[in-house]
């Protein structure tokens, strides 16, 4: 596959369509799976290990980021058996602060880059943004695609940008945010997923969390089908990260069920699936404590960072 405009268009428009009613019905049906007792305990620990603990606010300060990073290492200070999260996700300016806390811990450091969240900046600005984040210590880069280019059919433009950012990442893993809430159709979600993977994405991610519609089960299902089919065709495995709007343990478990029954075991690992979330972690911790102690502890027993 070359990145020529003609080839990309032919390929992406030749992918099988997605039936909206069908994919939503399938996601809803999987959402009714009943995950209890031992299965629930295993799911909660796995979900905690998959969290990209995120703060992406204009008001972020070094103090806030240090606190968040500390929480990433020890989500439940009262329980040493509680695993750490997968990564901390911050703006590039905050990368050095987080890097200091996380150094040597095994918890990854992700940074959004490329003029997050709109992606509306010249390429050299995006690349500089990326290089800065990597230089500051980020080992994962969450880039946004240019939805403007995608929606106007300039697939080659989007492709070239991803290739360039991937190169700027060096050793860092690249997550490509499709911002599915702005793509409008499941067909577009599937095309954008393939486009990102063809261009070298290590992960495809649903959303920035900055537009009204963030991650949904059907969108994630379409993306999981895409990574499954991509591996079948190319042999390369790509990860998936739903982000935004996943707040409860119940929601998180529905995503794990989705992985389990769509792509299976190979993706049930923090290397291949992440939750971009902030408030989700405390709900997971609360449910985890409930399972071990048999009762719910009040919110004051869980740290707010």
């Amino acid at each position: 596959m070359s990145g020529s405009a003609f080839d990309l268009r032919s390929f992406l428009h030749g992918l099988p369509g997605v039936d909206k009613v069908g994919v939503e019905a399938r996601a809803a049906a999987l959402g009714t799976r009943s995950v209890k007792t031992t299965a629930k305990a295993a799911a909660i620990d796995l979900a905690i290990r998959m969290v990209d603990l995120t703060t992406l606010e204009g008001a972020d300060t070094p103090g806030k980021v240090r606190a968040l990073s500390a929480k990433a290492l020890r989500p439940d200070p009262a329980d040493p058996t509680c695993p750490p999260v997968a990564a901390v996700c911050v703006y590039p300016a905050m990368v050095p602060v987080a890097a200091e806390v996380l150094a040597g811990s095994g918890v990854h450091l992700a940074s959004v880059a490329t003029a997050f969240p709109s992606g509306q900046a010249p390429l050299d600005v995006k690349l500089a943004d990326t290089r800065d984040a990597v230089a500051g210590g980020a080992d994962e880069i969450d880039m946004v695609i240019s939805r403007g280019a995608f929606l106007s059919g300039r697939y080659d433009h989007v492709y070239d940008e991803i290739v360039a950012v991937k190169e700027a990442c060096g050793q860092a893993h690249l997550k490509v945010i499709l911002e599915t809430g702005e793509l409008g159709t499941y067909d577009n979600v599937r095309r954008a997923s393939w486009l990102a993977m063809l261009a070298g994405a290590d992960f495809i991610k649903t959303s920035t969390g900055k537009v009204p519609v963030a991650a949904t089960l059907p969108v994630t299902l379409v993306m999981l089908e895409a990574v499954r089919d991509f591996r079948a065709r190319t042999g390369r495995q790509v990860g998936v990260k739903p982000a935004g709007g996943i707040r409860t343990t119940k929601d998180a478990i529905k995503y794990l069920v989705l992985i389990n029954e769509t792509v299976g075991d190979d993706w049930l690992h923090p290397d291949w699936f992440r939750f971009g979330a902030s408030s989700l972690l405390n709900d997971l911790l609360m449910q985890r404590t409930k399972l071990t102690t048999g009762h719910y502890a009040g919110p004051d027993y869980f740290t707010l960072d």
Partner: protein
Amino acid sequence: MFEYAPAPESRSVVDIAPSYGLFIDGEFVPPASSGGAFKTVNPATEEVLAEVSTAGPEDIDRAVAAARRASGPWSALPGAERAKYLFRIARIIQERSRELAVLESLDNGKPIRESRDVDLPLVAAHFFYYAGWADKLRYAGFGDNPRPLGVAAQVIPWNFPLLMLAWKIAPALATGNTVVLKPAETTPLSALFFADVCRQADLPPGVVNIVTGAGDAGRTLVEHPGVDKVAFTGSTEVGRQIARSVAGTRKRLTLELGGKAANIVFDDAPIDQAVEGIVNGIFFNQGHVCCAGSRLLVQESIAEELLESLKRRMATLRVGDPLDKNTDVGAINSAEQLERIRTLSDIGAEEGAERWSPPCTLPSQGFWFAPTIFTGVTQAHRIAREEIFGPVLSVLTFRTPDEAIEKANNTPYGLSAGIWSDKGSQILAVADKLRAGVVWANTFNKFDPTSPFGGYKESGYGREGGRHGLEAYLA
């Protein structure tokens, strides 16, 4: 692997009596001649659930007489008053849906996920829908003074016991008829529970009568001279016998019989959703569905890719305890049905079709059959022609839309069909040429009380559901 811990629905939510009488004239009564009891079992475990009475000719007489007595006053009620009873029944069903869902899964073997999420909501919806028609019959398009027929004899199958009861009873009552209904002998319990719902709704005695028994009881009922209307859902073979026995009488007849539906997948189909539709088409309710998509017609250019996806998807089907909330495929309803499925599947293999099932462990007790597909099937194979009524899919290929239509129609049946394509014009053009009562596009096994359902050719005649469903109960 992410293993789900067992998540069984509690069976203690429903009370099952050790034995049941017949529901005649608003009361449970013992059958006239004793000794005619039979047992109904849980097909997932072979455990006996209850002892049920066999209705003899005298009992059928009593039931028909009770329905006749009730018929005058019931049909004289203003439609809005009859509607009140139907609305009440619908609400009680909703309130007691958990009990009914568990009961249905116990007696039938279908997964609780389906009885809870499909059967029961549709049952309630059907009563709500026909309740709405009861006071609007003059505007339904059947003349300005449509009259009920009188007493309806209704015989229903075991695959959707309560839903088929709703399809029969709701329109009959809405139009002012009274009924004597015989549930299938392997699944009588939800109909007997429904009798209790009628009492709870204060339905006048005799409007609904439930008689239980096997084929003999059904025959006595449909041949009873006091019956004005016969409605039957079941096999084509029994449907033929009924048509013969009713011929030359005043009785009106509707039949909803077997099927061998073609599920046609074109090369431009949304593949992942088509795979779901194929699975839903044939493995829903263990394939015990008259409109099941039991013949997959796939365009040859995508056959290999599609079958690979289908097999991968089938490997995730969870077969087992019907009461576990995560079960996708439950038990075969009876030993007899299991034998039939086994026989036809063996014939399929002998005739040279290639058989495949995903690896799955079946429980040692009860009646079970693994989801199965046959590839390399041609129109000449028996498994492509005969209704198996089990989780067995025959896969055939086609080259052009014309060939797909020709193969789809090349069957004595004509109950349903499915089309999978992203191209709207193709869907409309093909649907127009399929000789089937229901044609689904990019979906399968979707039911709605507002939509008429029924067959062409040997799949029967008459329509149930929708405005059309009223016609079968009006003069």
